[in-house]
């Protein structure tokens, strides 16, 4: 482990945003925004440079304090982490630019929400830290950084609805992290280490490991709003300021998913049964159908988009049953593992780009019209063609029509489903797509319909529309380097691996 090349980037990716956030506190509101934006661009650039570094060098590490695990903490940047960091960098930079114009436009009335910048930089540092962390307890600290800054951003608007939703979100987040930490305590007690790499070697199956897996999964499911713990997500995401909604749905919920994936695949393999995977998949499937249906029934644009997040996150959970091999299936013969992993990573990226673009567009519409009732979208195509185009493109990616990133993800998911013979998931994927098509086309139909009476309309800065459109295009462009990207991802140990599930009925090792 420690013979891997050392790089300063992992440390910088966490340290720098927090340093800039701290510095920005010294400035007055306008200065906070300038320093904050600079910090965001810097962090984004750093993320991309780090991605290139990993592409050239392979996995890099940073041994914090010079103390080897298990006593010390190791930051580890493999290709999976690098791709997530790169995605955060790109989406983060666009959202930051949008936020700059968005808050400039409202500076006169609301003071421009200067606290957005330090909080967002803290959030970014937390996300980078989470992707890089290789230590169970350190992961807890990073999810707390993410959780607190995310809730603080969500309540920034000062609206009552946002604050009630924010408190619900915060209580769910604290409960989730405490459940996670209970699992960590049990794992530490039974192995004496917190390092993921060492844990994989020493973790033994048993009642304690199974229970730890249960509470850790429970905690992370609460954090990523997996069914049935999705209740906090729609109100929190829909009541936040537009750039914040985009951040929350594009990036924050993916953090918990990333840990869940890593821990299941890299650490807890010894305790996972085939039916556990099916259960998670079932939760995902219900989320897909329920979330899409709810989105279809909503009347305001932001609520539609927020419910759609529940559904899109459901797809992510549906890759878990595919990655767990039934007893007796050899890992070598399972040719559906790579498509399933690809589906997961691409679903994360496509959703991040498309959903960010969707929320940013919703923010533009609210800024122009003053509200976001879906009926008001009438005749928007002639007045804001760029925004409607962004919604259209992002919507196509969410539905999963070719040649979008969303299509690629769902196609790979279906491929994995059929190759593995778990055909019962396929109708869910298709039904989800149809329901998504339902609400996306409903919105587009309204946008192109002629209005009976013209609503008052305020012009919005062009920069906002460009950011939303570029992000929407991003959800298509990610398909172009697919082949190269998958090849790169395969250099990560986790990517393409499956779990040899243990027999049902608990054949515990040392019971």
């Amino acid at each position: 482990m420690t013979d891997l090349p050392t790089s300063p980037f992992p440390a910088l990716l966490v340290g720098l945003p927090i340093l800039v956030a701290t510095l920005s506190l010294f400035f007055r509101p306008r200065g906070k925004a300038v320093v904050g934006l600079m910090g965001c661009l810097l962090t984004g650039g750093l993320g991309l440079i780090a991605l290139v570094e990993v592409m050239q060098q392979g996995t890099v590490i940073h041994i914090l304090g010079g103390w080897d695990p298990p006593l010390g903490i190791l930051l580890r940047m493999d290709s999976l982490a690098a791709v997530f960091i790169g995605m955060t960098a790109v989406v983060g930079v666009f959202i930051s630019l949008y936020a700059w114009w968005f808050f400039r436009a409202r500076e006169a009335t609301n003071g421009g929400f200067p606290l957005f910048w330090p909080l967002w930089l803290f959030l970014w540092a937390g996300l980078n830290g989470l992707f890089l962390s290789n230590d169970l307890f350190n992961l807890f600290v990073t999810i707390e950084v993410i959780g607190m800054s995310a809730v603080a951003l969500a309540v920034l608007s000062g609206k009552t609805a946002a604050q009630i939703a924010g408190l619900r979100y915060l209580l769910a987040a604290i409960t989730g992290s405490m459940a996670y930490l209970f699992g960590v305590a049990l794992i530490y007690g039974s192995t004496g280490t917190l390092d993921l790499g060492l844990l994989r070697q020493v973790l033994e199956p048993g009642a304690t490991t199974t229970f730890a897996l249960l509470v850790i999964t429970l905690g992370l499911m609460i954090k990523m709003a997996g069914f049935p713990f999705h209740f906090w997500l729609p109100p929190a995401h829909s009541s936040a300021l537009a750039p914040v909604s985009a951040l929350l749905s594009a990036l924050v919920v993916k953090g918990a998913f990333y840990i869940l994936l890593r821990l299941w695949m890299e650490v807890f393999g010894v305790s996972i049964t085939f039916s556990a995977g099916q259960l998670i998949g079932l939760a995902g499937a219900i989320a897909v159908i329920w979330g899409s249906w709810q989105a279809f029934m909503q009347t305001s644009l932001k609520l539609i988009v927020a419910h759609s997040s529940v559904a899109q996150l459901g797809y992510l959970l549906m890759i878990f049953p595919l990655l767990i091999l039934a007893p007796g299936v050899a890992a070598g013969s399972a040719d559906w593992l790579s498509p399933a992993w690809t589906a997961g990573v691409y679903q994360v990226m496509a959703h991040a780009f498309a959903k960010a673009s969707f929320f940013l567009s919703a923010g533009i519409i609210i800024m122009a019209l003053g509200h976001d009732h879906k009926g008001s979208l009438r005749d928007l195509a002639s007045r804001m063609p760029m925004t409607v185009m962004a919604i259209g493109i992002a919507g196509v990616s969410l539905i999963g029509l070719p040649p979008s990133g969303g299509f690629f993800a769902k196609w790979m998911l279906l491929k994995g489903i059929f190759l593995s013979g778990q055909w019962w998931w396929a109708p869910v994927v298709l039904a989800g797509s149809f329901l998504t098509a339902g609400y996306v086309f409903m919105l587009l139909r309204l946008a192109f319909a002629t209005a009976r009476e013209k609503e008052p309309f305020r012009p919005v800065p062009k920069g906002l529309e460009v950011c939303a459109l570029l992000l929407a295009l991003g959800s298509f462009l990610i398909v172009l380097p697919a082949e190269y990207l998958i090849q790169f991802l395969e250099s990560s140990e986790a990517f393409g691996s499956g779990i040899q599930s243990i027999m049902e009925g608990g054949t515990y090792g040392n019971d």
Partner: protein
Amino acid sequence: METYQIYILTSAVLFVIGMGGVFMARHFIKKIIATIIMGGGVFLCFVSFAQRDALTFADPVPHALVITGIVVAVASAAFALALARRIYQLTGEESFTNDK
């Protein structure tokens, strides 16, 4: 029965009490207190293991983790309390109205 075994059982009980409290309590403040009780259970679990693994002194790593954890938990609880009080000022509500 050794000391650490008593407390480790207590830790599980506290964790479940706290978890139940988060879901079942109605008042904001009680929900926040419940999260702290949950945390108390988790930290007790860590510290019990530290005592079990003691040589000349108890295992220092869980102690350090717990100190970190307590501070983090208190920071989020303080934030939750601030939000709860703000909501009470704005609406006069002391619990989620459409609570499950």
